[in-house]
């Protein structure tokens, strides 16, 4: 009898671990034919979105390794990147130089923010995710305070086109024409009408190598140990708090670069919304790729970005052809992005509970 329960349990275990990508593949398989998009269009869209979003999603990997869950605090990094972009736009520095300068300016900012975020999360062990989530909202307020009231008053801004008509505060939309697609078009390549942003993919590949290399360094090993069990790691002589802070700092700095890459592709910046969306979409994409709160790999990132954005592109049109209202598809995709995070988080918590039961049963030795 125990054997029978165990096989059913195994199937359940597999389905639970891979539920999210399975649901998404099924949904896409249904929605793509309905939307009537051409294959070439979809391939082009997916390539653009892969180059645009992968870096942001990759920045989430390291805190997961350190057992801190999904770093909703990555929006802090995105904010730092945006401040760098506003400054270089004001100084009128174009192209790759502008982008690199934006990165240089925002790096110290991102380090400080990341350090702050890490220290706060150290005071909220076991509830890192909800804390970093609220921290994102909180810092959004601080960001607004700085950018809406400080810029042009405390921080000198010379370009009047950036400022609101009252003389200080940045406009809702910042035009990034100067660095638009500068990285994407750095090495142009066109195959069969599909243009490929080679340079961006090279940067992303470099970053993947960095993550792989990092896993095997001393620090990377320490992080994994901390992620497994904080108490064991501490008794092994690892400085747990410091390691956790470092993992968040790295993630924040990378999210900052990711946001700069993201925005150079888009070419315009919603000064007060871009970072919030960045966080939500990156996390949803990673989860769609089959990652969980405790384990995420590089393939998860790419599978996730493709599947999530496929749904994103396809659902409004599918909604239009299916029911005759594009608005409906629009709401559907909002529902899917939030629903998927809810499902993934719930499945993870449930799985942890089930795993505990499995471990207990195997200890009993009748498996």
């Amino acid at each position, binding site marked *: 009898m125990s054997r029978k329960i165990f096989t059913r349990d195994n199937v359940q275990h597999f389905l639970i671990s891979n539920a999210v990508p399975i649901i998404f593949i099924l949904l896409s398989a249904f929605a793509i034919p309905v939307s009537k998009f051409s294959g070439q269009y979809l391939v082009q869209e997916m390539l653009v979105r892969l180059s645009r979003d992968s870096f942001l999603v990759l920045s989430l990997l390291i805190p997961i390794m350190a057992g801190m869950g999904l770093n909703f605090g990555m929006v802090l990094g995105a904010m730092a990147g945006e401040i760098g972009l506003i400054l270089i736009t004001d100084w009128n520095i174009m192209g790759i130089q502008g982008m690199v300068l934006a990165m240089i300016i925002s790096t110290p900012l991102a380090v400080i923010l990341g350090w702050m975020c890490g220290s*706060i999360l150290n*005071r*909220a*062990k*076991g*509830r890192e*995710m*909800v*804390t970093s*989530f*609220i*921290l994102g*909202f*909180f810092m*959004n*307020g*601080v960001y*607004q*305070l700085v950018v*809406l*009231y400080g810029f042009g008053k405390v921080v000198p801004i010379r370009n009047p086109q950036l400022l609101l008509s*009252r003389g200080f505060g940045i406009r809702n939309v910042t035009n990034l024409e100067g660095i638009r697609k500068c990285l994407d078009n750095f090495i142009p390549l066109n195959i069969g009408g599909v243009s490929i942003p080679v340079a961006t993919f090279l940067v992303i590949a470099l970053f993947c190598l960095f993550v792989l290399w990092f896993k095997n360094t001393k620090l990377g090993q320490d992080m994994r140990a901390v992620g497994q069990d904080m108490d064991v790691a501490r008794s092994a002589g690892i400085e747990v708090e410091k390691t956790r802070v470092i993992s968040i700092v790295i993630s924040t700095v990378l999210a900052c670069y990711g946001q700069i890459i993201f925005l150079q592709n888009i070419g315009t910046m919603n000064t007060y919304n871009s970072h919030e969306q960045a966080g939500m979409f990156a996390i949803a994409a990673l989860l769609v790729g089959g990652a969980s709160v405790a384990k995420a790999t590089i393939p998860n990132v790419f599978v996730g970005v493709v599947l999530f954005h496929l749904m994103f592109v396809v659902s409004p049109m599918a909604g239009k052809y299916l029911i005759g*209202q594009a*608005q*409906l598809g629009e*709401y*559907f995709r*909002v*529902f899917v992005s*939030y*629903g998927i*995070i*809810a499902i993934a*988080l*719930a499945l*993870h*918590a*449930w799985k942890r*509970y089930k795993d505990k039961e499995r471990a207990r049963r195997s200890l009993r030795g009748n498996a």
Partner: protein
Amino acid sequence: MKRILQFIERVGWPRVIIAIFLLSLFIAAPFVRVRIDASISDTLVRFGMNGVMVLAMVPMIQAGCGLNFGLPLGIIAGLVGAVTSIEMGITGLAGILAAMVIAVPIATLLGLGYGILLNKVKGGEMMIATYVGFSSVAFMCIMWLMLPYKSPNMVWGYAGAGLRTTISVEGYWDRAISNVASFNFGEFFYCPTGMFLFFAFMCFLIWIFMHTKTGTAMTTVGSNPEYARSAGVDVDRMRIISVILSTVLGAIGIIVYQQSFGFIQLYMGPFYMAFPAVAAILIGGASVHKATILNVVIGTFLFQGILTMTPSVINSLIETDMSEVIRIIVSNGMILYALTRVVKVRS
């Protein structure tokens, strides 16, 4: 001096700072030509509007389910009730009663499902609750478009189907509760007595419930689940009851809110509504594990007071609208403080 410090320690620094801030706003108001009677009246109205929704936090916190970021779920039940009541064309107090009668069973069902889900994810409730709230709001966006409501006051004029984003309750039950025994004092002061009576009544009900056998068991589950289990309390059942209670209160809360506000906000309207309620109860002195009705009353008053006073006073003071930023920083800062503090006490 020592006694002052002790008092501050007990009340908590953020609360003292916020109270002083609010007090200074009230003091500064006459100097920048903001009418104090109008301000107090506004504060009172908003206090009554939001009170029940803040009260909805209490059962879940007491049962150890954490802060109820899933409040939008209850709000949705309330919205369905309100919209259906208008569809049926019932006016006055009867309309509100109808809305509540429809909303409560829906909220109970949603709360049951939500409670079962939260029982499966013990330890990660708050994050999951947030996203359950978000995704249910997004799901209802689809529903508002599809549900077969017909009243011309509610559907889009040109399409004849799909509910509007904001629906006026004027002509149905605009201020039906507020206006019970309400009075004006001078030109600017309006006291929504009925709404206060209703809020007091709800507080009283919850207070009684918390002192019944079930309520006491619930508190035990929240403060020490292991002890509760060994004392023979069904932990999961208590948690589900608390979640249902919170969700039902959320549904009633939004109806009270709407009748005073005058509009029903659909679609993305309820999206962020959990955060002000969570912030309010925390400002009132609740923690992630313990909340009382006094916390609700104090917190709602302080938080809504700040929300009312900052736009008028700060705007006339420095001639810039910073109220939105202050609201974001105060409410989320308060939640952050509560989340980080509990662990410190524990360890």
